[in-house]
């Protein structure tokens, strides 16, 4: 985590041949992109403004969820210098937590014939988020205790393999527990999927779904809360200290194991919230739900600069928007949206390996 910007002066780099090649490549890539954008936007002009607004809305909503999950990757990386590949599965467990609360609440029929779910939408949603967050936080806590803590001193590669193993284990455990079929989230009536405010743009109805707006607003609030915790609280200061140097932090009286546990709990809470949002907005969850968002969020974290919290937020949003606007803007098939997302990742690693907002690497991480 590079919360504290050090005031290191940029070093004047020499013009090596590698740097020249990269610069030429960058100019070619940018020229190609601009040419493609010009063709699609000006020459073909297939899509009116209402379509671009729809693309952006889809992108912002999914971007918010990616950002919440990406923060989990970044927090854990900042502290343990490992990629927690089981994080997507932690999110899936949260999605199931919310699912079961909604199932429970919608099975309670009140005296006026309404279900508890429909009668108290706000309370039901709060309960669902609480359950989802708790489930994911518990999963994250035990994941660290069982799978990662015994390997604290092991080489980083071993932790990575353990994380992949934990991911497969959680996925298959969920399949055995909950069955392989996709399950439908029972939203409260007020939050019916697909319903929302209608805005007329260019004589066409653009829908701002309630579920989407709720997801987006909530993800912004959660990100702000996290930023506050990391920057302004004692726990946040301890987390930053541990991320910079574990040994010195321990010498200063910080319980490193405790801070690591709490980091996993916090990233679990955020992933759980993202899981419940995923369920409420997209509607279907199964044991596989966490896999793709997990990979995408990892991409987002790298895009923003892994280990950098605002970077994860920005990376998530950028990735969401690129995925929904990119194929149309470049005139490509929509199936290629992942190709675009991962191409951006590769370009980013080539030209700016530290990510959009940069990553502060301490000696230990290198």
């Amino acid at each position, binding site marked *: 985590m590079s919360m504290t910007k050090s005031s290191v002066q940029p070093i004047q780099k020499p013009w090596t041949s590698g740097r020249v090649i990269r610069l030429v490549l960058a100019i070619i890539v940018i020229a190609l992109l601009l040419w493609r954008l010009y063709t699609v936007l000006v020459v073909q002009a*297939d*899509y*009116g403004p*209402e*379509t671009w607004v*729809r*693309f952006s*809305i*889809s*992108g912002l*909503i*999914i971007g918010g969820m990616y950002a919440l999950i990406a923060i989990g990757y970044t927090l854990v990386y900042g502290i343990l210098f490992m990629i927690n590949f089981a994080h997507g599965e932690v999110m899936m467990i949260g999605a199931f937590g919310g699912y079961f609360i909604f199932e429970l609440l919608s099975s309670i029929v009140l005296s006026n014939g309404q279900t508890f779910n429909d009668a108290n939408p706000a309370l039901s949603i709060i309960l669902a988020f609480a359950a989802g967050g708790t489930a994911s936080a518990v999963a994250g806590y035990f994941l660290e205790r069982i799978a990662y803590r015994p390997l604290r001193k092991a080489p980083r590669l071993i932790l990575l393999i353990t994380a992949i193993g934990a991911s497969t284990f959680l996925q*298959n455990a969920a*399949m055995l527990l909950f069955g*392989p*079929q*996709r399950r*439908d989230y029972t939203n409260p009536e007020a939050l019916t*999927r*697909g319903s*929302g405010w209608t805005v007329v743009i260019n004589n*066409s*109805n*653009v*829908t701002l*779904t309630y579920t989407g707006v709720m997801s987006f607003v909530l993800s912004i609030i959660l990100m702000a809360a996290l930023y506050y915790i990391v920057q302004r609280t004692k726990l946040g200061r301890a987390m930053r200290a541990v991320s910079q140097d574990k040994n010195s932090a321990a010498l200063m009286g910080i319980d490193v194991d405790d801070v690591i546990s709490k980091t996993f709990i916090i990233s679990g809470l955020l992933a759980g919230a993202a899981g419940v949002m*995923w369920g409420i*907005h*997209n*509607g*279907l969850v199964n044991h*596989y*739900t966490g896999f*793709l968002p997990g990979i995408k969020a990892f991409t987002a974290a790298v895009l923003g600069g892994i280990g950098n919290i605002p970077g994860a937020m920005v990376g998530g949003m950028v990735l969401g928007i690129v*995925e*929904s*606007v990119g*194929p*149309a803007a470049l005139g490509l*098939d*929509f*199936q290629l*949206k*992942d190709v675009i997302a991962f191409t951006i990742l590769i370009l980013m690693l080539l030209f700016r390996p530290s990510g959009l907002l940069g990553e502060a690497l301490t000696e230990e991480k290198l």
Partner: protein
Amino acid sequence: MTKKYAFYVLLIVAVMLAACGPAATPAPEEPMPEAPTQAPPEATEAPAMEEKASFAFELVAEDDGASPEGAAAVANKLVADPTFVAMGGHAFSGATAAAIPIYEAAGIPMLSPSATNPDLTKSGSAVFNRNAFTDVEQAKAAAEFIFNNLGFTKLAAMHDGGDYGQGLAQLVADNFTAMGGEVVAFEAITPGETDYTAVLSAVAAKSPEVLYFGGYNAEGAVITNQMAQSGLEGVVFFGCDGTFGADFLEKTGANGEGAYATTLVPASSPEKDAFDAAYTERFGVAPGVLSPYSWNAFDAGNALMTAVTQVAVVSADGEPEACASDAFGCAVIEPGQTIKVGYSGPITGDYAAFGQDMSQAMMIAVDAFPPIEGEGTLYIPRGALVTAVRTMSDFQGIAGTITCQENGECNASGPVLYVIQDGVWTPAAR
């Protein structure tokens, strides 16, 4: 320190247990293939050749993950088993294509309940058959219905990028253009996702009247639910046999009203009701919920076992003549062994529901099928079995009649068009 010692002691015990585990129980490991699960007790005595033996069928359900690599691995594993005689799969078209050459070399007849890509029967394979209807027939029926009966002229075609979905969407688009309609958009989606609003918005910008989708329930239901919010209000969703089923109704609710699909789900009959009841009782879920292919899989299993019964010879004195003259020789089943019928599909992973459903349906067929009785050893001439499946005619299954043509197309009943009316799949008036 004591804690650390306790840990090492535990570790050593665990290692010893792990090492001893298989060794301590070698008995069931070795004779597993001959385990007399279904056979009567007297069959276990080896020299009792004159005793009446009973050869039961056994289902071997394998997980190919719906991928060509997985399918090839499964096929290679199964053909190595001398008591494996027939394959009720594979489930997905891409996986099936990879597995066909392996069964071809080993003389194993296939009868797939769900692999519908048209090219599969064009390769001239002697072993591959299917009781699913082909996408050619399905696409023609769908395009004609959209153009003639619904009277739409602007079609958007979408697919999931798979062999099945893309082939189907392309065929519908070709048929529709040939009839004089206009295909305004042709888009692919990434399967397994739950948010397709971006691609739907792009399709909406081309203002189609009907949206054809080639793919499966999971994606079809998501598309149907997100059409209105993406600017496709009032556009008709037209699916395929992959989007038919109770699951689609459940997942789309009110959004699904007026959606079309093609299917091979049979009308109610006593046999179908009996199967439905058995399936529901055993697996706690009704057939058609996990995948639309439950009935087809049941039929495929029964048809294969019927063919085995037709060609099998029980002989107490050595190999019968049929084995010597057979191009692939005989599968030899000793008393106490079972006749293995295979199934292969995605039993884990994103499409797990499909594979599990079909293997469960086939399990019901296999467990209820009467064993072959006789004295001696059972011989199944493999080449004759391949021919018997290919020449099968008028086999009455619960999902329709199975009559195999020379190329291996065995569905003689054709697709049925259904539409959702008042939350129920109803046959559409043509």
